[in-house]
């Protein structure tokens, strides 16, 4: 069968020869390949593609693909303490149910008349994120948190007419790399120093570096290294005094208990809704967002689609439309300062389901549960010989640095040994933050039990002994 170019395939209805003949007759051709006469002969591939032999039966295909996937070891088989921008949270079954609905899974760009439900779900996502963030405008998804920040910095540059961003030096290395590539010649990224003992931004350094060239000051709460930046208002005051905007990155799973960044002066808030019901998917579950106050100067600079309610014939009837579609790259083309396209909408719909299930009480409990377990893990690990929590005095949410320098062991070596004990140790920071030496970033969420943490402590004690 596989050698026959005219075989019938279950995914290709018109590959049945009778119907194909009918259709060829309609277009007055004897063979489908004649329809390629518009392609010059010398551009045609005059051989069969050299590809692996296919599995025509679904059974064989399933065996083949699943057997390769089965070589992975998942975070369900191991206890994982990895975070750093992709976090293991509990995914409610209802999130999977909605996420897998064929209507949502297989829709695309249809408008309010054909995909009304998609638009309402997305509007609800924007609305619930708006409640968490205390902001009135929330974007449809950007590709991820990094894309959101990079776009937000460029928005700041356009709004202020300036070309410099001050970015906290504890930003993750990959995110910083994204910003540098994205802002490139349009914007200079300067790093803000932090106090080594607290992790907090050095306000004197900020004071020295802000100027009339500063378009934005960017920091995160909680920071990439897990600690809380408590000087938000002071940072905002210094930045605003010179006409700079404040861009804050936030892990929204903290927002049941932590203040939304607008309360301490944020103008643009970015982050990722992956924690809200989206599986890690090896990093494929991300869902970036940008949020601002409802002001024209901000709305005009969003790169993403923004869904707005649209009026119906009566006050009771409402539909949805795109707010100022003309500002997007679809219309502005060669004059567009940014771009948008297919991003992560299904993840946003999933996040809407999650927030609906959790409600205000659930979000408070989520935040509290994470912070409580995180504090417990920090306390226990700090008691291990050879492990130090350098920022113990600063409150943390979800993630924290463990410094192994005193043990004389490499993080890579420690993690290999933990692996043998069924544990994925924290992310090795030795390359991205060389000043921290042999340190790792540990992540604890609501899925970790006391036993999980105690087992980690026991394993670390053995490994470091």
């Amino acid at each position, binding site marked *: 069968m596989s050698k026959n170019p005219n075989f019938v395939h279950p995914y290709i209805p018109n590959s049945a020869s009778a119907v194909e003949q009918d259709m060829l007759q309609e277009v007055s051709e004897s063979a489908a390949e004649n329809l390629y006469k518009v392609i010059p002969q010398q551009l045609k591939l005059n051989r069969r593609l050299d*590809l692996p032999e296919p599995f025509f039966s679904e059974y064989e295909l399933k065996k083949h693909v699943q057997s390769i996937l089965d070589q992975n070891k998942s975070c369900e088989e191991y206890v994982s303490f990895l975070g750093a921008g992709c976090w293991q949270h509990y995914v409610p079954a209802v999130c999977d149910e909605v996420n897998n609905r064929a209507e949502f899974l297989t829709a695309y760009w249809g408008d309010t008349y054909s995909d009304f439900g998609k638009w309402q779900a997305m509007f609800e996502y924007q609305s619930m994120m708006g409640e968490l963030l205390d902001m009135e405008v929330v974007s449809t998804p950007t590709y991820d948190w990094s894309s959101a920040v990079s776009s937000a910095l460029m928005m700041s540059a356009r709004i202020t007419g300036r070309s410099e961003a001050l970015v906290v030096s504890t930003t993750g290395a990959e995110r910083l790399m994204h910003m540098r590539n994205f802002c490139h010649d349009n914007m200079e990224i300067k790093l803000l120093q932090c106090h080594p003992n607290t992790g907090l931004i050095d306000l004197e350094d900020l004071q020295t570096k802000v100027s009339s060239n500063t378009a934005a000051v960017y920091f995160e709460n909680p920071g990439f290294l897990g600690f809380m930046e408590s000087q938000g208002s002071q940072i905002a005051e210094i930045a605003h005094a010179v006409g700079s905007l404040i861009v804050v990155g936030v892990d929204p799973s903290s927002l049941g208990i932590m*203040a939304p960044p607008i309360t301490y002066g944020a103008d643009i808030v970015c982050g990722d809704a992956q924690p809200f019901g989206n599986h890690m998917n090896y990093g494929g579950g991300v869902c970036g967002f940008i949020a601002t106050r409802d002001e024209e100067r901000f709305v005009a600079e969003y790169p993403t689609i923004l869904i707005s309610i649209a009026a119906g014939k009566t006050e009771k009837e409402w539909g949805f*439309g795109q707010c100022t579609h003309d500002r997007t790259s679809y219309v502005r083309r060669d004059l567009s300062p940014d771009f948008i396209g297919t991003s992560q909408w299904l993840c946003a719909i999933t996040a809407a389901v999650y927030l609906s299930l959790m409600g205000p009480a659930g979000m408070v409990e989520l935040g509290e549960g994470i912070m409580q377990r995180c504090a417990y893990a920090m306390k226990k690990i700090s008691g291990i010989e050879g492990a130090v929590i350098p920022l113990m005095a600063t409150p943390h949410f979800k993630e924290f640095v463990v410094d192994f320098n005193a043990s004389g062991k490499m993080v890579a070596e420690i993690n290999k040994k933990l692996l043998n004990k069924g544990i994925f140790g924290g992310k090795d920071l030795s390359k991205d933050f060389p000043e921290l030496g042999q340190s790792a970033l540990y992540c604890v969420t609501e899925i970790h039990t006391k036993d999980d943490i105690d087992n980690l402590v026991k394993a670390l004690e053995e490994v470091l002994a």
Partner: protein
Amino acid sequence: MRKNMDIHAARWDEPFIMQLGTPGERGMFLPAVEDAIYQETGDVLDTIPASLKRETRPVLPEVSQPRVVRHFLRLSQMTMGLDLTPDISQGTCTMKYSPKINESFCKSPKMTSIHPYQDEDTVQGILKLVYNLRNILCEISGMEDFSFQPGGGSQAIYTNACIIRAYHAANGQGQQRNEIITTTYSHPVDAAAPHTAGYKIIQLLPEENGYPSVKALKSALSERTAGLMITNPEDTGIFNPHIQEFVDLVHEAGGLCAYDQANANGILGIARARDAGFDMCHFNLHKTFSSPHGCIGPGCGAVGVKEELIRFLPLPAIIFDGEKYHIDYDCPDSIGKVRSFLGNIQVVVRSYAWIMSLGADGLKRVAEIAVLNNNYLTNRIAGIKGVVLPYPDSGNRLEQTRFSWGELQEETGVNTEDVRRRIVDYGLQSYHTSHYPIIIPEPFTLEPSETFSKEDLDLYVDIFSKVSQEAYEDPKLVKTAPHRSSTEQVDVSVCDDPETWAMTWRAFQRKHQEG
């Protein structure tokens, strides 16, 4: 026999989730923190600095689980996914069937519950799939390496623009070569993404055949040319036969050529980007390679490059030493990151499985049937009263066709937006009109991928004929459509006025419901 024309979309009159439930209701419990943890740490909420403590609870809905399920299932029923309708409407988007078996792989914990920073020994399976798909796409395109990091087609175009920038910078010509050439009928992001990357953009207008002339290209080329970023066939479905000459001329001028193959559905196994001289290309795995579109993502724009450009690809690289797969961050010339981690890898898994269900012959059949479907449909749609096929002398179209309702509009006053709403009443997805700028009057763009049967195509034509007839006999009926959709016609001018637009429930309440 029933024909699926006498339909009414689900219309649940469903409130917003924010209006549902009662205070105290809830949809989910999380694991409680053990007492022993509290005993050890005390109440940590007290340690949050006052400035960072949330003062009031977020005003989220308080709804029981069954009502949340009912709500979102109702919304799903009011969404016209491809599984429910022959979605020939979204031309340029390559709507095709996403096999259910491939979804089972994406639901496996071996996919969902793996973390991007796991030890590479524990992710050999996923790395193997990524590497295998890389090899397959290299053969399909003729390129020599691929990155799956970009999360969509636009981001892939942007990645290619960054690679062009890095290439010229490495040759000391970064400042001098500051122009990218594209065509008006290429995707808007072929202009917008390189512009975002700092380039001045020259857009070549279509001439009488529907594509720009070699002469126009020549006059745009100079020592400032960094590259060409182009779709072919373009949005119209017309293949530019001079493409090889275009590529050669850009190369002579010192530029690179990037082939936007977001939609490569018509030429799989027929023609390859590298054989036409292109230096780089990208495929949308959520289009040609069958991963579902997910209400606008997650997708993947797979970027392919020739040997000399591999060193500029986003990092990390996935390499194979003959025994094991490795994640390699040692890429000193890389443009860096365009997206976090390795991209939407679940999309890679689906595309790999799809290709492995078809093989070389199957892929070629996909292309041939997609093109045959489109030519059959184009012949029949072009015969409908009020429809004009632009550029009639430019040979047959490949996998998609842009048409015009210009004649219908002149004769009846019914325009393409009206028809677009009306076909929804017959169970069809609202169609893609055109990317900007609008050159063809009252445009619509159709793409009947290999997924659709002759019966589907005939039904589609019947509905368009019916709507045309309605336009001539009762234009008001079409102009006031939809009548059988989940919603009435709405006034979208609300969405452009700062006084009335509302992106969130709280803004809506403030602007529309207070006082």
